[in-house]
Structures are given as C-alpha cells and as structure tokens.
C-alpha cells in the first residue's frame, strides 16, 4: 500500500483532534508534500515511516500551538458536544467522559507543548516510546519523563474536578 494511503487517515485523525478538521486537512496535505520534498532524509533502514511523518506534522502543528490552546480553553469553558465521545462507549464511561471534558481540556491546555505532543501520540495512536522519540527527535528517556509529567498533571486536574465539578468552569481552565 502506498505511503500516503497507509498513513493519511491516522495522521489526519491525530491532527483533527488537536486543531480541528479544517486546519487538519491543510496540515495533512502539507505533511505529505514536505515529506516528499524531504524524502532523501528518510532513513530507509527504518521499517515504518509513521514516526517520520508525525515528526513533520508536529513541526507544522507548532505554528498553530496558540490555536490549539485557544480551542482547548473554549472546551474548558463550554465543554464539547456529547457526539465527541465514542458512541460505542458504555454509558458510565460515556457519562464520565462527558463530565470530565472541561477538566481534560484544561489539563491539556496547561501542559507544555512538548509534553502534550508526547501524551497525545501515546494516547491516541498507541505509538511506542521509541516511535515518539523518533517523531519528536528526542531521547527515549525524555519521552518517558514527558509522559510521566503530562499524565500526572492530567490526573491532578481530573482528581480536582472529581472533588469540585465546578472548578474548571470557574477558573476557565487556568491553573
């Protein structure tokens, strides 16, 4: 299967969840054109191009970091529609997810960009530490520490929301 067909859907999904569908379309296409332009840099010893593509996409996303954080803060204030959650999720899980949306969005907005990148690649795409390290061009140990830090912050926000459900709305997601 050609490179584009193999990775386009996953790449778009990741980008759309981060910055919205319109911008994700632009960045997806831009990622592949940049990959084409940079194709000589690809290490053909590697058996998977996904980390390479995610690395290119991440660099493009960084130009839109403010837009992403603005969107997350909007979710913190207003939540997201129920349809945002997987229809197949069980009702308890669904309710939990809906109720925790502001806290989750606030937590993501509060993360450093690098921590957020590592966390979302891990959570949404099941990327290994090694693949995330390749994508972000950082050592595996740094991936590990970024993930630990990011998950701790997210869990703290979730715990705080459990204790005081109105907290995130009151603070508009700001720590």
């Amino acid at each position, binding site marked *: 299967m050609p490179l584009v067909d193999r990775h*386009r859907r996953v790449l778009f*999904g990741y980008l*759309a969840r981060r910055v919205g569908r319109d911008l994700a379309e632009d960045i997806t296409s831009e990622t592949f054109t940049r990959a084409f332009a940079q194709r000589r840099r*690809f290490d053909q010893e590697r058996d998977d191009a996904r980390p390479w593509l995610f690395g290119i996409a991440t660099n493009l996303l960084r130009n839109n970091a403010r837009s992403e954080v603005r969107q997350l803060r909007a979710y913190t204030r207003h939540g997201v529609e129920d349809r945002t959650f997987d229809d197949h999720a069980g009702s308890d899980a669904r309710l939990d997810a809906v109720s925790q949306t502001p806290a989750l969005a606030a937590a993501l907005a509060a993360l450093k960009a690098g921590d957020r990148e590592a966390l979302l690649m891990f959570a949404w795409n099941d990327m290994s530490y090694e693949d995330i390290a390749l994508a972000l061009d950082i050592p595996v140990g740094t991936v590990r520490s970024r993930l630990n830090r990011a998950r701790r912050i997210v869990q703290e926000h979730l715990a705080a929301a459990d204790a005081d459900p109105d907290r995130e709305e009151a603070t508009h997601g700001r720590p």
Partner: protein
Amino acid sequence: MDDRDLELLRTFRADEAVEPPGLAARVEEDLWQLVLAEEASRARRPAAGAGQRRWRGSLLRPLAAAGAAAVLAGVVAVASDGGSSGNANVVGGPAREASAGLLDGAASRLFGRDGGSTTATTGIPSGKIDVTEPDAGDAALVDGPALDDGSLDASSRDLVDELPRDPTTLLATVRAAATAVDGSDPADRAAFAAAMRWVVQPAVPTDLRAAMLRSVAGMAGLDAATTGVDVLGRTGLVVSHFDSLTGLREQWVLDPERGTLLERRAFTTTYADPTTCPPGTFTEHVVLDDDGHRVDPEAVPYLDWPEVLGACDTRPLP
C-alpha cells in the same frame, strides 16, 4: 498510576478523527503539483553535456548511481538524448503540451496523417485482436471469442472497427474499459498501459494505433514523451507515465520507424513507499529485439529483475 486519564483521552474529540471524503484526492493533487514543479525545475537546469546524455547500453546505471536523486524525475531527463523533439525535456504544464505535440507528430509519422488503415483483415468474423503480448506481432489476430471482462485487451474484430478514432472520445472509452477491470484509476495508470498495448501492436489497424497514441496525451500522469534510448542503446520514442498514487513510473520505448515496442519498464521512484522497496527497483521490464521477440534476460544486464516483486531486489547496478 491508573489509566483513567488515558481512557478518557482516547475518547476525547474522537469524532473529529473521521477522514473527510475529499482529503485523499486533495493530497494526491498537492503531491502531483509538487512533482510537476520539481520536474519543471529540474528541466530548467542547464543541459548536461552530450556525453552525459547518451547512455548507450547503460541506461539503467544512473538510476542506482544517482540513487534517490535520479529516479523520480531524472529518469525522464536521462532517457532523453535531446534529439528532434527540441523542448521535450521540458516537463510540467509546458511539458504536457510539448509531449502532446510530440505524440501527435509521432502518430502522424508512424501511422499516417489521415490514419488510413493499412492492416488487412483476416476475414474471421469471430476473430479477435489480442494485445496482451507485446511480442505477438501478427499472431495477435486470432480466432475465438473476445474477452468479456470489460477490458479492450482481447477485443472482437467488430469492436475494433467500432472503436472511435477521435482521441478524446477514444480516451473516454479506454478509461471506461480500464475502470471496468481495475476499478478506480485516478492517475490513468491502467488506461495508459491499455492504450500503449494497442499502440505497439502491429496487427492493430494503424488509424486506431494513431488514435490510441494521441489519446495518451490527455491522460493524467503523462509526464513526458520524448526521444531517448532503450536499455540496448536503440533510439526511440519514450512515453512516460507517473502514477502519483503508487510512486511507480512506467516507460514505453517505441521503435521510431514502426511504432513497435522496444522496451517497457516500470520502476519505483522516491515517491513510492520508501519502506517497501528502494527507489529504482524494477517491477516490470520487457525488452524486444528488432524482430519483435523477447530478449533473453541473460543477455541484458539486470533484465532478469523480478517482473512482479515479492521482495525487493536490491542488487547494485554495475
């Protein structure tokens, strides 16, 4: 650390991830524009010296020697000897026009301006023309039922007579037939191969061969028609097609006098999935001698590369 955070994250904005229907086409179009721009840029560079442009007997060598740089668009320039086509090296928008002009000229020169049929019919009412074997020659006129798979590869003589000679109308017919067999064919890969099979077949009426060659000019992915040399060093008309979906380039080298096939080669470019096979890997390769018979692979270096790759053949070129 429990995993509730990850479970919640996995559902967060999940519906945003559904791919919109037009994205695949958009990515393909953006890439295609980039390919054309790159090839046009490459073509604007100063021409190489005559010695570098004549690859007598060593056409394939630059593919490996230049590695990734050579295989995408460079092959088109490599194949050109800067001959009678003048600006045939120019690719992109102007290149398409130049290529179309060359194809039209070649069709007229090879098969006659008016496209009058010069092939006698066999008088076999139920006969067919089978163009699947490029070395079949007149043996392509055979008795028996035509294929009923929707393709034009082995068509009844009646259908051959009925096929339109207007290139635009014929292009639509070829596309429809290619799509009937291969399903989606956005880059005209199947249509290109189908049309070229008719072009090189001497048993086919010449007016139809001419129309087929002209129809190629309107196909997506036609990236060059130029003069060049084949792997044996014979000068011919090189018609090149690039499939932006797979990254495969397919080139047909035609005898300049008879329009028959000298060489057909398909190979990966740097746009092909780099995790599958290295750029420059041949996926198909056929060479015919001057009598139209297949050349013994042993006689041509690297002609014995696998026709259909189950695995990459990465042997270095000499």
